[in-house]
């Protein structure tokens, strides 16, 4: 088969066009379903900070959506803790805030969603405050949701996720056992300083009498450091809001 250069080039161009159309067509058709899947996954992660993961695992998608609707209300704040309802003319909702895109902006310009977990029918009686966190692991991004009790000090729970950490090492941050290590730890020390909670180097030690330290991941120190930095940075960014909620709940308790 005599194949001239013209034939080769024409063939390649046609093949590229066909494959390109096929891929973009698929992307268009599947796009909405993928967005739904991702939104559902985000809701699962947010709820995962306050409800045990096995419970969420047993729920069907409609149940998760319904539970989220009735138990989570959300607002968006800026770095000074003030509520933000619109930006550049468009309304802002917590679920629509893209944490990853926001991370690229300087901390003072970001939008900070806050998810409040409450019982069905009583949105004023908040049981937990859930904050999204985002940072860098060893290979790629890591993110998650941290839940604080109403004293704005004790951690109720945390969910962590990653884009490309090593399976068996850094990827272990998604394990329920690792995430449960944060439950009950506090983020402020006795002098009222925000010290957050740090994952220590090495694994297997007991840190139950230290409220600001959790057991680490053997072989995944860099990912653990990434988690520590992510927690510290975002808690500092949310600190204005946290302090304002602390003082308002202290007033309410009087």
């Amino acid at each position, binding site marked *: *088969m005599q194949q001239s250069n013209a034939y080769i080039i024409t063939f390649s161009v046609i093949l590229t066009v066909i494959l390109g159309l096929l891929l973009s067509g698929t992307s268009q058709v599947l796009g909405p379903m*993928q967005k739904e*899947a991702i939104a559902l*996954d985000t809701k699962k992660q947010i709820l995962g900070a306050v409800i045990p993961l096995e419970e969420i695992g047993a729920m069907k998608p409609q149940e998760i959506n319904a539970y989220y609707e009735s138990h989570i209300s959300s607002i968006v704040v800026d770095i000074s803790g003030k509520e933000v309802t619109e930006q550049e003319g468009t309304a802002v909702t917590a679920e629509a805030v893209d944490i990853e895109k926001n991370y690229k902006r300087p901390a003072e310009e970001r939008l900070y969603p806050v998810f409040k977990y409450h019982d069905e029918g009583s949105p004023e009686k908040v049981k937990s405050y859930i904050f999204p966190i985002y940072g860098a692991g060893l290979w790629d991004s890591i993110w998650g949701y941290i839940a604080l009790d109403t004293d704005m000090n004790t951690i109720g729970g945390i969910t962590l996720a990653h884009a490309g950490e090593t399976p068996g090492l850094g990827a272990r941050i998604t394990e329920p056992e690792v995430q449960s290590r944060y439950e009950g730890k506090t983020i402020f020390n006795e002098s009222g300083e925000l010290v957050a909670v740090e994952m220590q180097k090495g694994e297997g030690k007991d840190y139950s009498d230290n409220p600001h330290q959790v057991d680490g991941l053997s072989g995944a120190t860099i990912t653990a450091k990434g988690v520590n930095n992510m927690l510290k940075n975002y808690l500092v960014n949310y600190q204005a809001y946290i302090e304002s909620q602390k003082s308002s709940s202290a007033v309410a308790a009087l």
Partner: protein
Amino acid sequence: MSAETLEKKPAEALLSKRRRKLVSDPLIDDNPVTIQVLGICSALAVTTQMKPTLVMAIAVIFVVVMSNFVISLMRTTIPGRVRIIVQLAVVATLVTLVNEVLKAFAYDMYKELSVFVGLIITNCIVMGRLEAFALGNKPYDSVLDGLGSALGYSWIILAVAFFRELLGSGSLFGLPIYDSISGLFGPDFSLATNGLMVSPVGAFMILGLIIWVQRTKTGYVEH
């Protein structure tokens, strides 16, 4: 003139002996993983549990069969000089399609398999069958050959995953097996899970044992 000077060759049966061999050979005698030793990477990486392994197997079957079919259809038109690149483009498109479908309909599996679905492109079995068979054979035969190779690969990784999940996590498809049989032979009877099986070292060992058993049974010796 005789009425039948040229007797038309009867069309080959859809599942003739030759064609059945195309599917059955790669299952045991010419298994891509244990005999040809191809596609080992994913055989170690995803097989910690059976569920992702099953999804991986289905994905590989789809990619190998479809790419064999497409390349075989195009085999007379592909310019020789860009042969490998064309194969790569087709395989990459198919793998991306699989990834997008997973992302839309099975997001949890998509998260669990992460990069390994994309790595099907690098799986030697895929390109191997295209070069060795699809480029020189008709579409239907190529589909059968692809099916055989992919099934041969699939049963091996499922076998490895079976042992790794059972011995390493005490479960199968997520159902706890060790927990349910503890206490069966007396109150203190319980089986401990073997952490080695969860790491790639365990996968190597299981794979090696399977290769040993299989080659003993078929009498295959490398020359």
